């Protein structure tokens, strides 16, 4: 079987894709909230790099604008905001216990394989690089969900949520050369508003249950006493 020849661009995309999944795994293993925020910013930076790379290689100059938006939003603005919030809530030194760490990691590996399995039928449609990007972005989405399921800390949930959006952006950039500009602006706006609302909610939750642990959000349930 001949080894397919990759262009430099495709090689770079594959390399970045691997790094993006790697940051997702690191997030799953990260205990400290501030470390989590740094990882999230790093993932955003990888995303911005992919976008800029696509803009440079392919004839899609509008991707430069997307890269700038991602840079501003996901590398600078949102991480800075989250960081300020956890400092104000005096949680920046908190470490979260990791439950069933080994199982979570194995589940994560299984999810990555599952993503490749789901995307497999697309293989013959398009270049291998695209297929990889699709599988990787689906994996990042699923790993974000896994992060949200296994953790108890509200801030971690928010980062998981934002990581899911990162995965979606990666799919949009690497496999379809970005969504139309108007959609991308709309999504960026939604993400920004969501981040602001999340910040507001940290304080509401804190003042209502005196902690940011979702296990203590348990007043509403089907079975009433």
């Amino acid at each position: 079987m001949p080894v397919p020849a990759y262009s430099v661009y495709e090689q770079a995309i594959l390399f970045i894709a691997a790094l993006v999944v790697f940051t997702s795994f690191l997030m799953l293993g990260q205990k400290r909230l501030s470390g989590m925020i740094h990882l999230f910013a790093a993932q955003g930076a990888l995303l911005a790099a992919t976008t800029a790379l696509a803009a440079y290689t392919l004839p899609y100059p509008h991707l430069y604008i997307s890269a700038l938006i991602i840079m501003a939003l996901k590398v600078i603005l949102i991480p800075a905001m989250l960081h300020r919030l956890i400092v104000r809530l005096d949680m920046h030194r908190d470490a979260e216990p990791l439950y069933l760490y080994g199982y979570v990691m194995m589940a994560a590996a299984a999810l990555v394989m599952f993503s490749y399995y789901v995307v497999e039928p697309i293989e013959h449609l398009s270049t291998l690089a695209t297929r990889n990007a699709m599988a990787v972005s689906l994996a990042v989405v699923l790993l974000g969900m896994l992060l949200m399921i296994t953790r108890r800390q509200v801030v971690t949930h928010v980062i998981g949520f934002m990581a899911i959006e990162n995965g979606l952006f990666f799919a949009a950039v690497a496999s379809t050369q970005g969504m139309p500009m108007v959609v991308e602006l709309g999504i960026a706006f939604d993400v920004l508003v969501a981040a602001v609302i999340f910040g507001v909610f940290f304080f509401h939750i804190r003042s209502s249950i005196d902690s940011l642990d979702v296990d203590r959000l348990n007043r509403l349930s089907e079975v009433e006493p």
Partner: protein
Amino acid sequence: MSAVYWILGIPFAGMLYQAWRGDAPQAGRLNTRLCGLVFLASLVLAAEVLRQGTIELADLQFRVDAFNVYLVVLTAFVGTTTAMFSAPYMANEREHGRVNAARMRLYHAMYQGFMLTMYLVLTTNNLGLMWVAMEGATLATVLLVSLYRSPESIEAAWKYFILCGVGIAQALFGTVLLYFAAGQVEGIGEHGLQWSVLYAHAADLNPTVMSIAFVFLLVGYGTKIGLVPLHNWLPDAHSEGPTPMSAILSGLLLNDALYAVVRSKMLVDGSLQSPLAGHLMMGFGLLSFLVAALFLHRQRDVKRLFSYSSIEHMGIMTFAFGLGGPLATFAALMHMTVHSLTKSAIFITVGHAAQIARTQRIEHIRGLMRTQPMVGWGLVFGVVAIAGMPPFGVFTSEFLVLTATMEEFPWLTPLLLLGIAVAFAGLFRHLHPMAYGPQPAGQAPVQANLWPVMAHLGIVLWLGLSIPGVLADWFSQATRLIAGSAPL
């Protein structure tokens, strides 16, 4: 200038103005007037569509056809009547100190913002923008759910935010896959997210990619419809937020999410030439219907009770749209209309009932007939209508769904009948003591505006007795768009 711009522009301007002056005494009335203006604009738009057929605007970014224009009118109508109810209701809540000036501003601004996102979902031709508007609806309502700032409401809002946010992210992945599939087809290029372009090329879209995309779209928007097992947020959000918001969430948001799924189904059906999409929707719909009917029996909170009823009815609609075929589609469209009208009317009476009893616990809401007979009768008629009793419109549409099921999947009919019976029993065993029963001491009538309830239930009754020619014609046109042929 097309009425579409007015329909989007008025709520946008209203949102900005209400964010600034939404705490003024006349803000509630202004809210009603803004919604009323949009309702008039929607009638103009309906007339335009009736006269010249499908309207396409602004480089295909907006598209209004027979299917979505009737939903625009319905949305505007329910939005207006709910705003009428909300003005005295929120004034009352403010008197009791449950909300302050800043939260009144937030409430009114977000009410308009929510209406804006709903109109955008319905009128846009761009599937990406539709997603943006849907997420915008979550963001607008999440602040409304937590309006009372009680621990329960904050928990409900958080759950709603996270579940719907993550859920709808799946829909975005589905949308990206659609765009990817469109990118493989010659001649689509930049327009790969525009619904009309995709629909025209549906047969060329890769079936494998489309079926994967549909699963993501169904799960994503299905979270928003409240399909079981993705429904957990719905009863909490509906029961903890202010009542006008429950009315518009049940009456409008769920419809619009279903609209998104049906649009996706139309695309996938064109590409796949197999009933996969329909069967998935039937399965999810039937499961939601049965589970919600059972859950009706164990509710203690009156607003939770009716939010489960919403899940049940969304289940019927999803099932009917999944069944496909002209008759089932016609029935589903009609069910969307009558359910929106009835459910928002019920939430309005329930809001008054909860203010009379000063609690939402069913066991403390007693003897409404004696305290305030109008509210009691409103609730009785509303529940009779939603349970699918003749002569109300819900009976007609459920009957049509049953007929269509008997034709195509006769073995599913007993399940549907069973679910309807279980739901009927669940609603009535709670209704009876609330409406009749002895009156607790110290229960006094509240200031209530029951015109919206009468108007809604009157229309539902009318639709049950006879469907006006214009509307029947309209449903037929929409059915022809969705199912390919007219029902009659």
